[in-house]
């Protein structure tokens, strides 16, 4: 009885702290979103109020859609992110399988070599990367971004997935060998389906930094036709810095798709993180 009562107080305190922090976490996002739907006067006079019928205004969105190429930027980001993600997951899983499954000369060394990429940010190689992209004529192409993000995503992917693949039952793979399956079939039909949860986690860890990156789009692909949404928003806001309606609408447009995706997939994502994929 005593214990139950005490844990009730503790629980109330826990809720109070968590609610307070949740408000801190969400407030700026909510503030941007509600104000993006208001006219200029309402933004300044009553910034905390949600849009009312009188103050409702979509002028900011109109400016953004007229002046900015947001649809194009969005497609660019989507293309780059999806292509890089597919390459990271496919090639990373293949390499992880090779490292986890086969004994060969230099296996451990290869693992270490790939692990360098986890420790060293790829941005430090920017000078070399830009020179290479200039030399191969890939500057201002989405291909350049896909290549960079793939290279950057592979080490962590290989590291996490090879841990998981080591846990796939050895007996199962041997049973498949006795049944005459080729090594490729064993990988694609037996092992890949079994590490799908880990792949989901890796996908999230790979995808978010790519989508949100500013550095490489700024340096490798600043051209209007290949701008990503992050760079596009940054440039747009820089140009319209005094037009609060436009700035707020631009921010809201960049937030909303990510937020929507996150709300749909948050359950899997959090399960992925807490499943111990990363310790």
């Amino acid at each position, binding site marked *: 009885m005593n214990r139950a009562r005490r844990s009730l107080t503790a*629980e109330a305190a826990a809720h109070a*702290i968590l609610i307070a922090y949740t408000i801190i976490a*969400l407030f*700026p996002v909510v503030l941007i979103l509600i104000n993006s739907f208001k006219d200029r006067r309402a933004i300044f006079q009553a910034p905390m109020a949600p849009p009312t019928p009188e103050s409702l205004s979509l002028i900011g969105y109109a400016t953004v859609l007229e002046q900015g190429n947001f649809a194009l930027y969005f497609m660019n980001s989507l293309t780059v992110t999806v292509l890089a993600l597919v390459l990271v997951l496919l090639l990373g899983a293949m*390499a992880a399988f090779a490292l986890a499954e086969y004994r060969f000369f230099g296996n451990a060394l290869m693992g270490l070599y790939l692990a360098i990429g986890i420790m*060293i*940010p790829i941005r430090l190689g*920017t000078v070399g990367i830009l020179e290479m992209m200039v030399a191969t004529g890939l500057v201002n192409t989405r291909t350049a971004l896909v290549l960079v993000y793939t290279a950057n995503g592979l080490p962590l992917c*290989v590291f996490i997935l090879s841990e998981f693949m080591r846990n796939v039952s050895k007996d199962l793979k041997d049973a498949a060998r006795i049944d005459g399956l080729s090594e490729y079939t064993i990988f694609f039909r037996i092992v890949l389906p079994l590490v799908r949860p880990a792949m989901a986690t890796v996908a999230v860890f790979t995808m978010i930094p790519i989508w949100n990156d500013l550095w490489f789009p700024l340096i490798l692909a600043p051209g209007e036709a290949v701008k990503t949404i992050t760079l596009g928003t940054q440039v747009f806001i820089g140009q319209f810095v005094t037009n609060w309606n436009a700035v707020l609408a631009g921010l809201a447009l960049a937030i909303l798709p990510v937020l929507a995706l996150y709300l749909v997939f948050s359950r899997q994502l959090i399960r992925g993180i807490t499943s111990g994929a990363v310790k």
Partner: protein
Amino acid sequence: MQHARAAARRKPFPWHVVVFLAPAVLIYTAVMIYPLAETLRLSFFDRTDEGARFWVGLVNFERLFLDPHWADQFWNALANNFYFFVVHMAVQNPIGVLLAALLSMTHLPGRTFYRTAIFVPAMLSVVIIGFAWKLILSPIWGVSETLLGLVGLDFLFGPWLGKEGSALTTLALISVWQYVGIPMMLIYAALLAIPEDISEAADLDGVRGMALFFKVKLPLIWPTIGIISILTFIGNFNAFDLIYAVQGALAGPNFSTDILGTFLYRTFFGHQLELGDPHMGATIATAMFLIILVGVMAYLWGVQRRMRRYQF
């Protein structure tokens, strides 16, 4: 040796290992390792006005560390980077641990909601976050002042991002605000991995509540906090985006928010009247590389070796 020959005959070259490994290793080597190595190499070169490259040995490093034109900026950026890291460690980890501990209280209703909500900022682009806070902290809008007024603290308000003394701290706190969800999740996962038996055994020993957390659980999650620290350390050298988005490449006011990332960008690409200098850029990148290397080594040898990992 008939046996040996039989064994040799039945072992064709394991091409499948190559097929599995080669694509990843090739892309990784070509786009990550080679440019990194190339960058390190370029730090030993300079070029003539006509663009011809020539070997200069350690001259670039000498300039970076000693020539006032470079050294002032470099040491300033390095100190700022260090400060940025310290603020993260001092604020992000305690908040992360606190939130994770609260979330891991058994049967706390609504924890899925809290988890999801607190993680939202970490999903958004730093550019978005930076601008959002810039607006919120802007004296023109006055949102912050109003909010502080609600709790009677409006006298504290100031243009924090615009003042040399407070700009860097403000940016560091924005960064903490954005990313605190990540340490929270990792610690939360580590706490969940502690078997219920241990808590129950502690309960039978009369250890519960705060004591349970500090005497039993916290020691068990030190390794996780160690990993988070080293990830934070490495992440610091990627912290370019926030400062560039909020303060621009000049990391104002008066370079008070300049960190190695913005310094590297400015040097490499030039700004206003100064031309970009790839060789000094490479030199800065090499210096950052060495700092990270020292940090990671110090962690691996000094911290992790002493820390015990517990298997449950």
